[in-house]
């Protein structure tokens, strides 16, 4: 149980269309992350799955049953909100058991299920506390506990970590992942943080301006981004984009610098293209292209160098320790086998 199917779904507020024809199939037990910049419609889509937002066209089914007209409570889902949305006047135990109380589960049974969930989340000692007596991380756990006790078909997370500090965020990320591995409940998770998406997802849905840009596993998106948007959005530091034109066996940058390609591309010769090179796909090579060093940022395990290459700013990261100083020239060789070429006009991968 727990497969979610989104079919040609649209959403408009008055005359403004915020979601255009979205179709995503989420398999049972899968962890799918909806990621995109703010305002791309990812939260709206999640809220439509939850039943908190009407569907303007198309349909959403959970477990093979179309849920368009169903109230949130009848959809067999549980949701974790960005602000946690805990009931401030109820204890942790009451917060977690509220849905069971409404469903008429007997008190003893309720207590048992709440205690089970609390044990898993490390909340046993806090069951009698009020939310305001808890730290951010603990509140986050209570919000998850509230979802877990219901044993729903689908978990929905709406940017659940964005109110936590950086360290706690990393910690809770792995906790959420572990819980998913334990329960194997279908999960739809919304975030604007591509690192969260990369580290947690089985599959990522990249959204932009109300459209799906690409659906795939984290590494698929990283290795073969379908368009310029995905290429720029996924990965940190962001992919370097050089604009220029294509020749049969080389990319020619705006300033005339020739960068050799790995394969012969006679078909598109002459067309305006964007060459994408990830930061780690540069090698130090005295005989390579000359790049002027702008800044050097050593992190210990690697060195990030901002440099000027072919008339454009480029970030490269090297495993080696780079001793060059700003203003000096560094010989670098872009790794041709890892290039990404995009049509500059359409943004689509070539």
């Amino acid at each position, binding site marked *: 149980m727990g497969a979610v199917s989104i079919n040609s779904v649209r959403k408009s507020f008055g005359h403004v269309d915020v979601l255009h024809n979205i179709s995503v199939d989420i398999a049972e037990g899968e962890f799918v992350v909806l990621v995109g910049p703010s305002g791309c419609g990812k939260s709206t889509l999640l809220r439509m799955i939850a039943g908190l937002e009407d569907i303007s066209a198309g349909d959403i089914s959970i477990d093979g049953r179309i849920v368009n007209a169903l109230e949130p*409570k009848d959809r067999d*889902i549980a*949701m974790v909100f*960005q602000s946690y949305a805990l*009931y*401030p*006047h109820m204890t942790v135990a009451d917060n977690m058991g509220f849905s069971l109380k*409404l*469903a008429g589960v007997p008190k003893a049974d309720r207590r048992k299920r709440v205690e089970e969930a609390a044990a898993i989340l490390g909340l046993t000692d806090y069951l009698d506390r009020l939310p305001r007596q808890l730290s951010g991380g603990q509140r986050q756990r209570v919000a998850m506990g509230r979802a877990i006790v219901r044993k729903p078909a689908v978990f929905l997370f709406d940017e659940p970590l964005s109110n936590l500090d950086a360290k706690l965020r990393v910690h809770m990320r792995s906790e959420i992942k572990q819980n998913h591995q334990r329960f194997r409940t279908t999960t739809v998770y919304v975030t604007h943080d591509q690192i969260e998406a990369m580290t947690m997802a089985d599959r990522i849905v990249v959204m932009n301006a109300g459209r799906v840009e690409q659906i795939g596993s984290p590494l698929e998106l990283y290795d073969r981004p379908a368009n310029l948007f995905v290429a720029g959005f996924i990965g940190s530091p962001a992919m370097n984009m050089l604009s220029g034109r294509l020749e049969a066996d080389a990319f020619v940058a705006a300033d005339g610098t020739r960068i050799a390609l790995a394969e012969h591309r006679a078909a598109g010769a002459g067309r305006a293209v964007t060459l994408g090179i990830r930061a780690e796909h540069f090698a130090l090579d005295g005989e390579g292209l000359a790049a002027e060093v702008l800044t050097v940022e050593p992190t210990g395990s690697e060195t990030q160098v901002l440099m000027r290459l072919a008339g454009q700013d480029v970030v490269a990261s090297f495993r080696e320790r780079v001793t060059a100083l700003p203003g000096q020239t560094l010989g670098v060789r872009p790794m041709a086998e890892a290039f990404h070429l995009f049509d500059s006009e359409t943004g689509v991968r070539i």
Partner: protein
Amino acid sequence: MTDTSVPAAPGPTDRNIPRGKRGALRWWVLAFLFAFLAFMLAPIFLALNNAIKTATDYATNGPLALPQSFTVEGLLGFWSYVDFTSKIWNSLLLSAAVALFGVILSLLNAYAIGVGRIRGGRATLVILLLGIMIPQESLVYPLYYLAKSSGLYDSLWAPIIIFTVLQSAFGTYLLSAVMTTFPHEILEAARVDGANRWQILWYVVTPILRPTLAVLATFFFIWTWNEFLIPLVLLVSNANQTVSVAMGALSGQYVSQPTITAAAALLGITPTIIFFLIFQRTLTKGVVVGAVK
């Protein structure tokens, strides 16, 4: 032994003001507050001062002199003359019923307007507010006939219904403003948890707003307790009158007996003061609750 040579560390907020000026400012503030307190307490003091004097003492020394004699005759006389026990009971019944029903009605109205965002909510608010903006004197005549024709004339139910509606106009206004800012995610979480509208109101909204509701109930109680005109018009028989009506009725008959009037005033305000003392913690809590997120 006291050690005066060690100066106390200045508090963080005091640092910008020089030490000498700070002291002087504090004394001024204190003096002002005392003057204000004396001003506020003066009527109660006057009532108390004269209620326990004999009539001769009052006649000889005037209303401002401290009592040279002590008697509770005035208090007892007024109590038995107007059957104060039944007046208190009527006032209590009227005020408590209005406080309860008024809060319930305000809560239901405001839930529909503030959370339910019903169509025409704003217009409804304006119409409701007319109820408190129109002077009561102009409402008395129609209300009198309404009470007569509905058979509620000279029954406590008439002022209960009227004041419930009038007070809840203000209550609706206040609560719908509070509910508009109610965290939406909590309401949505409750929907996802399986609560219907009534359950959201009962289990989530009402307990969270309880301090505000308590303040509202306290205000309704005190306002209704102090109401004079409408109870005077609608409650004619002695058995149904309230404290304020009884006090009003007194002024014609006891013009020459100011000590009894003072006794009446003292007895009239005492229940409100007791009520306030009981609920003052709720009141301050309710005022603060909006500030603490």
